């Protein structure tokens, strides 16, 4: 196992190195550069452009620049953003990341949970009318042209019904005199959501072995009420009480994008869960459980669904990356200025240091996710481990 892990780790390092070099070369292959527009400014003397590209090192040969970039990268020096000079890419990522993290972590969890729940029901009610309709609905949302769908959602719920704001993450007037920057509120929200989720997880873990369904439900409800009370205490006391107003504004703005992305994203998980669970339901141990006289709900939730969860969780691990890179489309349509928009801007404006930093950040996380998945697979399935070691 150790040999396999070390081997995978070195493979990961090589892949990352190749990723860095290829990404850098590809960005440089885009015609022009971040300062090409200077060439088209009739007021600018010709030498000004030359001085500019010299100042940013763009006059050096490509090979030298790649070499320099890789060395500096591993020293932790990501250079300066061309467009936001003299701000560094890390500074810009730190500003945008909390916004994306907040929105897309919730979107992913909600979409995953909804998808899993729907998939479970679909498999269980195979052949029923509800299965047909829900499957059709899921396939529609899985295949719908997302930009159109998101704009329609925005137009209908935001403009026509006026239930939700038309994008952005805040109402400016409410923030004119805010003592807090929005990122501070985002950090508070992230902290709050993380702790709440962890406590909720604990509640479910500690109550999972209660045999009686009714007792388990009561215990969970009790836990939920405790959590709700703690949450209320948190938001009504101390500094959080002052932040509550601003946090509520952000939370309100999150509803429509979360709902929209969930509607599209849950379908993948639902269809995967349905397929996997239908296979599981054919297994002998399900028949045994039925023969033992267990309730249908228990067989579905505790026997079939748990087994079906494995491939679904694996697919979820890979979607976690979207928590970091966000979604260019979602962020553009809902005017949510996160990592997705930053990446788009960096690429369009050929801001190579910024684009490279954001891509590297995502690349590292993607590789780590794959690494964890691979190790888990090897751990769970000795065949993979043995094959790899041989």
């Amino acid at each position, binding site marked *: 196992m150790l040999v396999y892990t070390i081997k995978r780790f070195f493979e990961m390092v090589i892949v990352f190195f190749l990723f860095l070099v290829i990404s850098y070369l590809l960005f440089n292959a*885009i*015609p*022009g550069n971040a*300062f*090409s527009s200077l*060439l*088209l400014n*009739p*007021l*600018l*003397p*010709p*030498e*000004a*452009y030359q*001085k*500019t590209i010299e*100042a940013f090192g763009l006059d050096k040969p490509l090979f030298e620049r790649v070499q320099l970039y890789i060395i500096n990268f591993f020293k932790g020096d990501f250079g300066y953003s061309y467009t*936001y*000079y*003299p*701000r560094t890419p890390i500074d810009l990522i730190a500003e*945008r990341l909390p*916004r994306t993290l907040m929105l897309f972590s919730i979107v992913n969890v909600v979409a995953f949970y909804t998808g899993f729940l729907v998939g479970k029901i679909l498999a269980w009610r195979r052949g029923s009318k509800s299965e047909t309709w829900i499957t059709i609905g899921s396939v529609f949302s899985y295949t719908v042209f997302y930009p159109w769908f998101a*704009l329609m959602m*925005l*137009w209908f719920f*935001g*403009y026509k019904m006026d239930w939700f704001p*038309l*994008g952005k993450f*805040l109402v*400016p*007037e409410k*923030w004119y005199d*805010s003592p807090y*920057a*929005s990122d501070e509120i985002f950090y508070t929200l992230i902290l709050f959501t993380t702790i709440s989720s962890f406590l909720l997880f604990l509640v479910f873990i500690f109550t999972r072995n209660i045999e009686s369904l*009714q007792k388990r*439900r*009561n215990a969970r409800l*009790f836990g939920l*009420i*405790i959590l*709700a*009370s703690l949450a*209320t205490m948190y*938001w*009504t*006391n*101390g500094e959080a*009480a*002052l932040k*509550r107003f601003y946090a509520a504004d952000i939370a309100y703005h999150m509803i429509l994008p979360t709902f929209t992305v969930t509607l599209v994203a849950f379908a993948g998980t639902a269809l995967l869960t349905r397929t996997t669970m239908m296979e599981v339901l054919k297994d002998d141990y399900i028949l045994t459980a039925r023969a033992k006289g267990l309730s249908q709900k228990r067989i579905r939730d505790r026997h079939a669904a748990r087994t079906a969860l494995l491939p679904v969780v694996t697919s979820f691990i890979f979607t976690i990356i979207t928590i970091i890179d966000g979604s260019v489309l979602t962020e*553009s*349509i*809902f*005017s949510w*200025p996160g990592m997705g*928009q930053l990446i788009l801007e960096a690429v369009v404006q050929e801001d190579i240091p910024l684009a490279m930093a954001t891509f590297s950040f995502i690349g590292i996380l993607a590789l780590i996710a794959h690494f964890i998945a691979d190790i888990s697979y090897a751990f769970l399935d000795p065949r993979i481990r043995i094959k790899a070691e041989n």
Partner: protein
Amino acid sequence: MSNYKGSARWKFVVLFSIFAMIVVACGGDAVEEETVVEEEVAEEAAPATTEAEVEEAASAPEGVFKLGIFSDPQSFNIWDALDVQQDFWTYATLSPQATSLFGTNYPSYTLVTALASELVEVSEDNGDGTFSYTVPLHQGIEWSDGEAIDANDMVFTYQTVRDLGMLGAWTYNYPLATEGEDGSVSQGLTNIEAIDDYTVKVTFNFDPGLSIWQYGVGSASIVAEHYWSQFTTDRETLLAAPGDGAPVAGAFEYGTLESGAFYVWEYDEDTMWFGGDNTVYANGGVSYNLDNGVAPKISYEFGDLSGDSISWTDGPYVGTVEFSLYGDQDAAYLAFQNGEVDFVINPLGLKRNAVESLISAGDVEVITNQSNGYRYMAFNTREGKFPTDNKAFRQAVSCIVDKQFVIDSVLAGAVLNMDGQMPPALTSWVAPVTGVLADCDGLSSEERWNKSIGILQDAGWQADDWGEHPGGAERAIAPTGLKGPNGEAMPSDMLLYAPGPGYDPIRSTFSLFAADWMQQLGVDVIARPTGFSVIVDIILGEETCDEWYFYMLGWGLTPYPDHIVDFFQSDGDACVGGINTPGYSNPEYDALAAEFNAAKSVGEAQVIAKKMEAILFDDLPYLVLFTPPVIEAYRSNVEFPFTDVLDGLSNLTALPGSVKVND
């Protein structure tokens, strides 16, 4: 059984709901207490306010002017904004951190004084090859923090640009005389010194004209020395310095800046920048009078004060200007439709198909202005680049390309035809159209074809068969075996580079028609949709600047139309680093360009520009195609002092200093 268990569950619910309510109740009190404390502090502070301040505060404008933007500004620091970034959105949201000696009046585009108390247009010959302008400044004008704006601020700005090697717009704001590798010194600025606190002397190593003096150094940004001097240790420190605390030379200062969301300008209650009376005349004349009791009295008149006029008094009439950021244009206009913003800043204007839906939303006014720019087709005129180096060929192509047909019949009038280099709105600059463009205007397609063939034949071109035009709307039977006057064979597979339909459907359409018309003249050319950056790389690349025949692009122009020099002066050939992309070279034109550069007054420059235009109408290095209109919309409760202005209101940041937002 289940009933019993259900009851137990509800007991839990009730019990903990009560618990939660108690917690909430306790927590709620704490917040209220804190709020009360804050209010008390505010009340205690109030008596310290003087009566005068209270009066002033009471007269401060209220209301919010909400503007939608769809790209994040990259900086709030003027040094950074004018350096290499050159970003429209950064300029649009930048607080007025600088002033200048002279300025441009809008909507007339007339040169007027700003910090200078007179428009100094004549230089003194120092007798040592240098020439100086000595400019007196208004006394008593202050930055927002109460410090006087004086000659030292300009000296400081110049020295900082020089010593820290500032780039971007600073290089043409302060065009320094620099020594080349061969020891030669370029023409430029050699010194700026303060004769006294309110007189500045600007010295050049040559005698500059309008573009370098009045519209160059005279219009250059001058920043507050007392604030920025603390950051001038090096360029990087200066560019990273906080701009939100910088004093301003205007009525608004930065308020809350929430990156990625919104940016606010707030009215400075101690400002002296308000209440000027403006009158702008149809013939470009401007009259201004400032007598608000706080700022020094300023009064001037420039240009021809005849004809119809519009008048208004500067505000501000709003206390807050909010720039709200949206992810893209669609999101911004949806917010506009919903009443979230009063105006969307959009330098390219609204798409035509969006106008109807905006109007249908109600309470919306739509305005259309000409843009200060044009789209064109360029010919590579460099010697040896047959056939585009041949004047008769360019004339023949320019004649057969029926711009008006494309605009009227294909584009349904979406753009405005343009022939010359000057935007039609700058009436006093516009030269009468002459040459083939005038001769071919209004001709049918058959007549155009015949005329074009005639031009080629008259110039000695040869063909195996000259073809014929069947008449009406039919395509002509193209000449075959077309050869140049000296028997040069026509190259095959020539490309007309133009932006693709995704980038600009209008130019893309134009390119298809232009290529087809050229084919009817027997020229083997096809339109090639090409990425904007790719075209720019080809035409400006050192190694590729000569590797093309035709391309279509566009230019945005500056308030002073000296592009007529930059685009066609032979010194500025793109192959040697300039922007004369056609490689046009005409000694007569170069001589006029030199005269234009040396012109001391706008009237003088206009006369020369018209002579230059006449040459261009004959030589046709560019076939100017059209100017796109700038369509903008604003909510009906908004009142602008004027809406008829070249390039639209977006390019004036929607006039926050004089706009009125009614309830």
